[in-house]
């Protein structure tokens, strides 16, 4: 039987990879991809807890759907920012975008 911990470890690995992507990548779009991976890991956890918990309690699925909406909003605005930045500053490298630093 595939037990709950398999799914949780799978999700943890996905989350860690996503975290690495967010921290290590230079390109802002690649960072957004890392965030997507992390959100997906969260969704796996939510659905796994629904499946292995009380099936009548649909909270896990409902929250997963909400996470979809949040992820979509995040990508839409994030990529719009990247495009806007590219147009103004001609770069999408996250470490060169330091206007707000000082």
């Amino acid at each position: 039987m595939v037990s709950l911990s398999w799914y949780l470890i799978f999700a943890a690995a996905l989350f860690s990879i996503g975290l690495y992507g967010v921290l290590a990548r230079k390109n802002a779009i690649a960072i957004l991809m890392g965030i997507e991976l992390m959100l997906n890991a969260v969704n796996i956890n939510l659905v796994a807890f629904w499946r292995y918990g009380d099936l009548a309690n649909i909270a896990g699925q409902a929250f997963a759907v909400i996470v979809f909406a949040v992820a979509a909003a995040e990508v839409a605005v994030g990529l719009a920012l990247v495009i806007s930045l590219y147009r103004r500053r001609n770069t999408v490298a996250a470490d060169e975008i330091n206007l707000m630093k000082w």
Partner: protein
Amino acid sequence: MSGLEIIFLIVAGVTLLASLFVVTTPNLVHAALWLILALFGVAAAFVLLNAAFLAVVQVLVYIGAIAVLMIFAIMLTRRVMKDSGPQTNANWVWAALLGLLLFAGLTFVLINSGAEQASLPALALDADPIAQLGQELVSPNAYVIPFELASVLLLAAMIGAIVVAWKK
């Protein structure tokens, strides 16, 4: 090993491998294509968890819309793809260490958490999770506020994104 376990291991393996490529490939379009594979793997995991609705939504939203949006954004900001410099910043070693540490820590906690013993409840034949989801999403006792808020959030995100990306 049962058939289901083998399928799970294949799905998980492919997903993790694809996501590793996502965060390491220098070519951004390739990263986006690997991302599509990784997201598809997550959809397969949803299927294995009997959440068919979420699986198709995952494919529809992530592969059909978000990945396409990302590829469009990559093409629009494409001059960066030509710079041959490293695609990782100076902290990548620390990032890798942190990622490994996080994974090790989480795995350690999980193994000792007793999740191994969680039983798999049998699916009721007459229960339809989709109908249940539909009822609860618009039920005042459950998720109607998040439901309407999500709508407003998406509207705000759309307006915001268009204002930001719009060229005057």
